[in-house]
């Protein structure tokens, strides 16, 4: 095992209301691949952002090649030899591969850009990495996998000594992953240190040397990959936390009518043949890791994105949902994880947002019945305990939890019976979380039915009556709350290569 090239010690970082990193340690050695694992929100990305200068740490030290360092931006980190390969690609689709690799540092011959030399250099680089990409190809014509290779090649071309892969395989196919692993093994031989962030257990076993596990912003421990099992890692990831009143059995009677039935829903790569049923008064949890296709399923169901096929039955009747309008007419309501973009119109008032989905109901002839609008909004503000000085407050001035309640009010005002909560408590502080949970329980008690997409294991176990687990666009299992454990869910959510 190589010598230590990078040490992060006692790293601490807080955001308003969140202690994102709580005295975390990390050690990376030359010529090794270190897996960094943890549930969503465990602090992996934050730690890497602190390392590459995107975030400033509150305390702690970073030692790199024997010296203490603190990078101000990614560019400085890059120059020092620490490069991050992002999950989202920073590419220029209209330029060629070689032009992308050398953007901002072109070779020149007089005033002329020496594209020939750039192509040659790119070719050399690809040869060195054993990848087969034509440097003259336009970037947008490449598959996502090949684009990812280009990003890796770019990182290598910076003479990187430490390369961080942030979920590099999320969008890759089987063979592309194989190809990437080949590159990683080559880089290992060249004594380059790598940090590999991934959720895929099997990949971790295949490619990494050590595994560092984080949980809730803290460092849990480091294992030698060869010596541990998948179960060891999962146990470290989930820990042994005691949950606030977790559900032990479903509150829904077995004979409750099915209000929503989805069969063979297909929409692109992220939604493949998904089928499930939702009963009246039930909270159906959708669990899975980031990129499992849960949000995509919800959006396709709601008509927000086009779908390729699938049958939807509402209260036993087959319905056609091609646009959100159709969905709303069927009694569906969608609460997006990104409230500001998809949920509310921030520059409008609480009352205006409340009435948005059901203007018809707030008309007096051709005019908007503003009194009724405000009265109804006030009703929901009281019922949901939304904290706002008045219903004429602009939504932009409310906190995240209260904005969420405004979105709930919008759907309640529309009499929607089936609500899809996509990450209902993301970006909401603990106190407000409990309120949202109470609200959801109240809603199902009143006969509404809820689909809850959540990446938080505790949330899933606490709220759901039944749990659908997805992985890579497919439904991998369905668990009754009585039989569900963190381990069983995690097992279904992580992929097994056959």
């Amino acid at each position: 095992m190589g010598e230590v090239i990078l040490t992060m010690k006692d790293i601490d970082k807080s955001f308003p209301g969140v202690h994102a990193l709580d005295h975390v340690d990390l050690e990376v050695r030359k010529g090794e691949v270190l897996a960094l694992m943890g549930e969503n929100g465990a602090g992996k990305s934050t730690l890497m952002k602190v390392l590459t200068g995107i975030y400033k740490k509150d305390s702690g030290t970073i030692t790199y090649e024997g010296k203490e360092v603190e990078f101000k931006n990614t560019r400085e980190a890059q120059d020092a030899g620490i490069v991050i390969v992002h999950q989202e690609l920073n590419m220029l689709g209209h330029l060629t591969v070689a032009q992308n690799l050398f953007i901002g540092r072109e070779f020149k011959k007089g005033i002329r850009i020496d594209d020939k030399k750039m192509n040659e250099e790119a070719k050399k680089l690809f040869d060195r990495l054993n990848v087969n990409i034509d440097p003259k190809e336009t970037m947008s014509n490449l598959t996502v996998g090949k684009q990812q290779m280009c990003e890796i090649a770019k990182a290598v071309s910076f003479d990187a000594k430490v390369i961080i892969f942030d979920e590099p395989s999320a969008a890759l196919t089987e063979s592309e992953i194989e190809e990437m692993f080949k590159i990683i093994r080559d880089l290992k031989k060249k004594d380059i240190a790598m940090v590999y962030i991934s959720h895929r257990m099997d990949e971790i076993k295949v490619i990494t040397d050590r595994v560092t596990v984080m949980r809730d912003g803290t460092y849990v421990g480091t294992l030698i990959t060869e010596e541990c099992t998948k179960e060891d890692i999962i146990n470290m990831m989930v820990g042994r936390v005691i949950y606030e009143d977790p559900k032990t059995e479903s509150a829904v009677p077995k004979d409750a009518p099915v209000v929503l039935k989805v069969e063979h829903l297909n929409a692109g790569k992220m939604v493949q043949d998904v089928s499930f049923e939702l009963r009246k008064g039930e909270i159906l949890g959708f669990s899975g890791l980031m990129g499992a296709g849960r949000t995509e399923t919800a959006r396709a169901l709601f008509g927000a994105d086009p779908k390729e096929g699938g049958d939807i039955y509402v209260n036993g009747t087959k319905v056609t949902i091609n646009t959100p309008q159709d969905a709303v007419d069927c009694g569906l309501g969608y609460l997006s994880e990104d409230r500001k973009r998809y949920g509310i119109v921030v520059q409008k008032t609480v009352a205006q947002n409340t009435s948005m989905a059901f203007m018809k109901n707030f008309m007096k002839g051709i005019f908007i019945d503003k009194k009724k609008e405000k009265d109804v909004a006030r009703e929901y503000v009281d019922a949901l305990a939304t904290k706002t000085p008045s219903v004429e407050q602009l939504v932009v001035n409310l906190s995240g939890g209260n904005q969420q309640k405004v979105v709930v009010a919008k759907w309640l005002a529309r009499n929607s019976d089936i609500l899809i909560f996509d990450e209902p408590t993301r970006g909401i502080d603990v106190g407000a979380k409990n309120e949202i949970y109470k609200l959801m329980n109240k809603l199902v008690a009143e006969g509404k039915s809820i689909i809850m997409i959540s990446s938080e294991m505790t949330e899933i176990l606490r709220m759901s009556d039944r749990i659908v687990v997805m992985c890579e666009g497919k439904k991998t299992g369905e668990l009754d709350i009585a039989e569900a454990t963190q381990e069983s869910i995690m097992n279904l959510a992580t992929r097994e290569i056959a």
Partner: protein
Amino acid sequence: MVKKRAFGKLKGREVMVLGIIAAMIILFSFLSPTFRTYPTLVSVLDNSYYITLMALGVTFPLITGGVDLSIGTGLVSYALIGGYLIVHQGVPVGVGILACIGMGVLIGVFNGVLVAVMDLPPFLATLCTCMITRGLGPALCGGFGVSWPSALSESGAFRKIFKFTTANGTVVPIGIIFIVVLVLIMSFVLNHTRVGRYTIAIGSNKEATRLAGVNVKFYHMLAYIISGLFAGLAGVAYAATYATIYPGSGAGFELDAIGGAIVGGVSASGGVGSIIGAFLGVIVICLMKVGLPFIGLQANWQQIFTGLVLIAAVLIDVVKKKK
């Protein structure tokens, strides 16, 4: 070498536009025997010079994902100012030409600051500059029309860059040589220099370009300066081709140039475009302008067609993107 590169690999869109040009020529020739004459060719070319020059410049802002609407009224106002200096202030023609081009660059810088530094929406910022330049020429020159020196006078020699009359009275449109040289130069700039590379990069993904360490503000601004520079050159070409420049005209000229560029495959949403394509697109517009009267339609039909062709060209992109 450069020439080979520029003409060696025509893109699909350019071939398509060439086909349209050929079809139009055949159609017009077929419908009107008088179309197939040398004077018509000269007339098409004469009409194309200033539009082509504008198009060469405006292609840059278009590729960054913006637009420059000030070039039309701009070129008239620069030509007015240049002409005013020559005719009324007695400066040498060369200085007048430089003043004309210089004004263009100045307004280009102004637009660049508005868009790249102050971050205003390009169409709105340049729409304002369009108004400003419309007033600027007449305001500085007293609101009268100006005629640059005629080709017959000694100081009118500059007109011969565009149209040369031989001793026996044959007109040679040598301006086309000048234009072709500029087309090749700008094609080189767009495809083989940092300026062009970063122009495309900005149009493709501005944030990623910035993260790559490129001085995005500078290159974004430069696109508008190039546009202004060429509007200045177009002013000279306009003054050389037409007898008198009238204040208040020029509104709508930019549409011929932008329309031509977009017909030639420059994308309205940025990132894509070629100089050769823009040049060919302008030829289509000019053929319509000159050719339609030959088949019995008023010249103004050209405007309607330009509008429709513009939308059709963008719709092709929109539909392609949907797939």
